[in-house]
């Protein structure tokens, strides 16, 4: 695909003010779907099921079938609304959004239109550079997900040119909350980073609420980014594009940046922006035009006659409000202070999206410093190498156990890395790996002394230097001893003993 002409980012910012609006879809991890008793594939216990196995007549829109609202999904949505600082509607309604598409079993989507369950909120977002933004939330509403199409034949994997398409209705009816921001002004050069930080904050919130698996690569969290530019000094907002299919946090930032540069090039060249849906392509790092979108898209919304209004009691809302976890921004400030990290150290953890893992590791008994070292160091490296999430590699409990084995002197750092590999390979807990592989540090001084005496005897010149007070010469002996012990010795202890034996 031809890459559009892009304007230099700084130059674009000089000429134009970027305004963004973000729509984040959160798949809730309830046990069953939004309107049926079918298992919910957005709940990890049902993830990856064979196509069309998590379905009922309701998911397929069979004639005669009727939706019934999942009470848990309503509770989750209220909790999310409250966490976003929203008002909760005393009565909200579902509506039908009518359009024909083969992944939409009924050819209408049950959504909320003019009466969303939550509205008028705001969320505090901290950027990687420490800048704090308040993002205004317009609304959060409940709806159902569509099925999934796989286009077979044709080169693009898109519906155009495909020979035939397969539909998997497992995802049809997965509960969604769509969170819509108001236009976000003032991001300026931080706008792409702000978009990323906003999505990261939503992810933190839904994870802390426990209402979504929040894995972007699985589509649990999806972001559509609306971007428009207006010339400096102009009041009226520019024409916006809506970029879809942005399924990683890094892509959110890149896509917004790309759109700013692309639109700036067009506008500066005297062109106009087409109001349209655009698709983000992870591989090329570019967006491409989708279907034209206008405000006149006619979905013929009307109140869903198969469902009653959702009328949560004040008691329920109060109960859910009282059970809300700490807001992510507050939590970050607390953790930073509890852990005694520097700004840089804390950003390091936060930006890796590992706060939850770190907190759990500290809770399981590791020191904050050790927990940070492991998660942002070796584990992050291994995760990066195999292109998976660090949190998927190893549990916080195992990391804490590993750190404690190092602290107690049972393992050296080098040994601990081998143990970690064993744990990741599924060989059991760190202690089990230590036992099975025989990796513990030799703490028996007798065995060490024997090895040291032998090494000193074989390197009389080194021994002489040490005796002359040239302590740094001990390194050669220590190396030999560590080698003889196959690394299973504490180097500091070996050094102590070498110096002791040299004087003997």
């Amino acid at each position, binding site marked *: 695909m031809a890459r559009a002409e892009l304007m230099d980012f700084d130059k674009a910012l000089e000429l134009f003010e970027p305004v963004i609006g973000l729509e984040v879809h959160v798949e809730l991890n309830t046990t069953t779907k939004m309107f049926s008793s079918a298992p919910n594939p957005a709940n990890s216990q049902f993830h990856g099921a064979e196509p069309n196995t998590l379905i009922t007549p309701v998911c397929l829109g069979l004639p*005669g*079938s*009727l939706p019934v*609202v999942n009470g848990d999904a309503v509770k989750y949505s209220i909790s999310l609304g409250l966490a976003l600082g929203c008002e909760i509607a005393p009565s909200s309604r579902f509506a039908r959004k009518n359009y024909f598409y*083969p992944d939409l*079993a009924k050819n209408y989507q049950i959504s909320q239109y003019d009466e969303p369950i939550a509205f008028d909120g705001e969320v505090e977002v901290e950027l990687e550079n420490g800048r704090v933004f308040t993002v205004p939330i317009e609304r959060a509403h409940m709806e159902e997900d569509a099925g999934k199409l796989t286009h077979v034949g044709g080169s693009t994997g898109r519906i155009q040119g495909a020979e035939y398409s397969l539909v998997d209705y497992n995802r049809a009816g997965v509960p969604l909350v769509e969170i819509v921001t108001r236009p976000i002004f003032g991001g300026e050069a931080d706008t792409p980073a702000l978009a990323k930080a906003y999505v990261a904050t939503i992810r933190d919130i839904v994870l802390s609420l426990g209402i979504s698996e929040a894995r972007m690569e699985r589509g649990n969290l999806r972001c559509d980014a609306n971007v428009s530019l207006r010339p400096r000094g102009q009041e009226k907002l520019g024409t916006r594009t809506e970029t879809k299919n942005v399924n990683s946090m890094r892509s959110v930032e890149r896509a917004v940046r790309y759109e700013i540069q692309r639109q700036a090039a067009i506008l500066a060249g005297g062109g106009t922006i087409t109001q349209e849906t655009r698709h983000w392509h992870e591989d090329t790092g570019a967006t491409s035009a989708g279907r034209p979108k206008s405000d006149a898209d*006619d979905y013929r919304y009307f109140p869903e*006659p*198969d*469902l009653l209004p959702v009328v949560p009691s004040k008691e329920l809302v109060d109960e859910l409000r009282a059970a809300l976890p700490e807001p992510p921004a507050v939590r970050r400030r607390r953790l930073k202070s509890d852990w005694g990290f520097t700004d840089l150290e804390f950003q390091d953890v936060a930006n890796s999206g590992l706060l939850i893992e770190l907190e759990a590791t500290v809770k399981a008994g590791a020191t904050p410093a050790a927990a940070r070292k492991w998660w942002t160091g070796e584990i992050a490296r291994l995760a990066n190498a195999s292109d998976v999430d660090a949190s998927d590699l190893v549990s916080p409990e195992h990391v804490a156990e590993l750190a404690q084995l190092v602290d107690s002197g049972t393992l050296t750092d080098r040994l601990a890395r081998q143990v970690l590999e064993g744990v990741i390979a599924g060989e059991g807990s760190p202690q089990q790996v230590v036992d099975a592989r025989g990796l513990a540090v030799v703490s028996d001084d007798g065995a060490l002394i024997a090895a040291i005496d032998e090494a000193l005897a074989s390197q009389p010149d080194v021994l002489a230097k040490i005796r002359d007070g040239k302590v740094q010469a001990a390194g050669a002996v220590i190396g030999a001893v560590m080698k003889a012990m196959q690394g299973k010795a504490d180097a500091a202890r070996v050094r102590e003993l070498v110096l002791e034996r040299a004087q003997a």
Partner: protein
Amino acid sequence: MSDELIRLSAAALGAKLAAGEVSSVEATRAHLDRIAAVDGAVHAFLHVEGERAIETAAEIDRQRAAGAPLGPLAGVPIAIKDVLVTKGMPSTSGSRILEGWIPPYDATPVTKVREAGMIPLGKTNMDEFAMGSSTEHSAYGPTHNPWDLDRIPGGSGGGSAASVAAFEAPLALGSDTGGSIRQPAHVTGTVGVKPTYGAVSRYGSIALASSLDQIGPVTRNVLDAALLHDVIAGHDPLDSTSIPEAWPSMAEAVRRADVSGLRIGVIKELDSDGFQAGVRQRFHESLELLEKNGAEIVEISAPHFEYAIAAYYLILPAEASSNLAKFDSVRFGLRVTPEGGGTVEQVMSATREAGFGPEVKRRIILGTYALSAGYYDAYYGSAQKVRTLVQRDFDAAFANVDVLASPTAPTTAFKFGEKLADPVSMYLNDIATIPANLAGVPGISLPSGLAPEDGLPVGIQFLAPAREDARLYNVGAALEQLLEAQWGGPLLAQAPDLSTHELTATEEGAL
């Protein structure tokens, strides 16, 4: 013996079954024989269960022999309107677009009927997707009125009403969106009840207009309707609009029928010159009879009823246009591929073009238009306001009277083709029945006699406040008793004998 069995009411047949005087297999066989004999002429059925019905009956007989506790309708055969999905039985809703589709599940009312030990005989004919008042809009050909085979049996549930009137089934299930149970009852001399909206689950009823549809009994007398009502009513967690509270027994209301002191409101707007003379005559005779027996007759006005049809023909098509969107060939039913293949959009389009009849297309277009941006407020929005006004008319009326009364429909059964070219005159058939659907209140239609001018059946309709369905059974049973005393038996005893019509007996299951 066989002829005797088919002429029994469901209650009487149930009693004979309970007493061991007859087996369910015999009763079922008798009805299947009757269907074979007369349905070629009547065409009430789209599908007949045949031997499977006999097997089900045999199972109920075994349970009875083993001393299992069975309800009053256990072993009694029943016909089911094709709008209800039935596991393992075709369910077309009278449309080509569902031809050959076998649902994998039962509608809740069907489940309840099965649990009550009743024997499904088959599926009855109807206007396509319940759109019509004559069954002429069925994709499978019309049903004929057993009183005069050249006339319509009403609609959309003409098949259920005709099957009962022709003694092919003792009772049947129907659905009523604007009169589809009551108007066929009116023209076939049978009893039909539209329960309170939410009384009977809509789960598995192929939706026409979700906020108006209601499933109900189609029978030959009021007690049978009450017994079937008691079987199918009740909360269903699969239907969010189903009423959670428990219901009193309707059969009990029939047994205690007494109209002394009952205040009956006559709706002025539905007692006008627009109604056929014989229809009005029988209506007023019934009222006089009730008055003589202690009821008080009061004239009331429902000023907004005249707008009810206009509102109904916006709300119904709007909901229907959305409800019928699922018929797109992707998951079930007919698939028509344009010559040389086509995109999914073209396949959907070709399928809907070939699979839907003209009345269905007319209403989809009307509804799509009424919901469109820029027209929504003027059409759908205004219609909802009228709906509220109609509901207020009912509230005001029921503040003064216990039940309301009107003729069920303006005329007796008309001839085939008479109103096909003029949709509005067809729509006007439902002028008296539609307000109840807009307001969600229950209604009953029962025979009030034969119109002197054409000798065809006429029905009287009673309406009650929401959740007061029992009042309908009270007044209906009382009037039925008084009228039958005058007639010397059921009105249907005066219907022509159909046994001479065994000309084109249809094959089982291949209708």
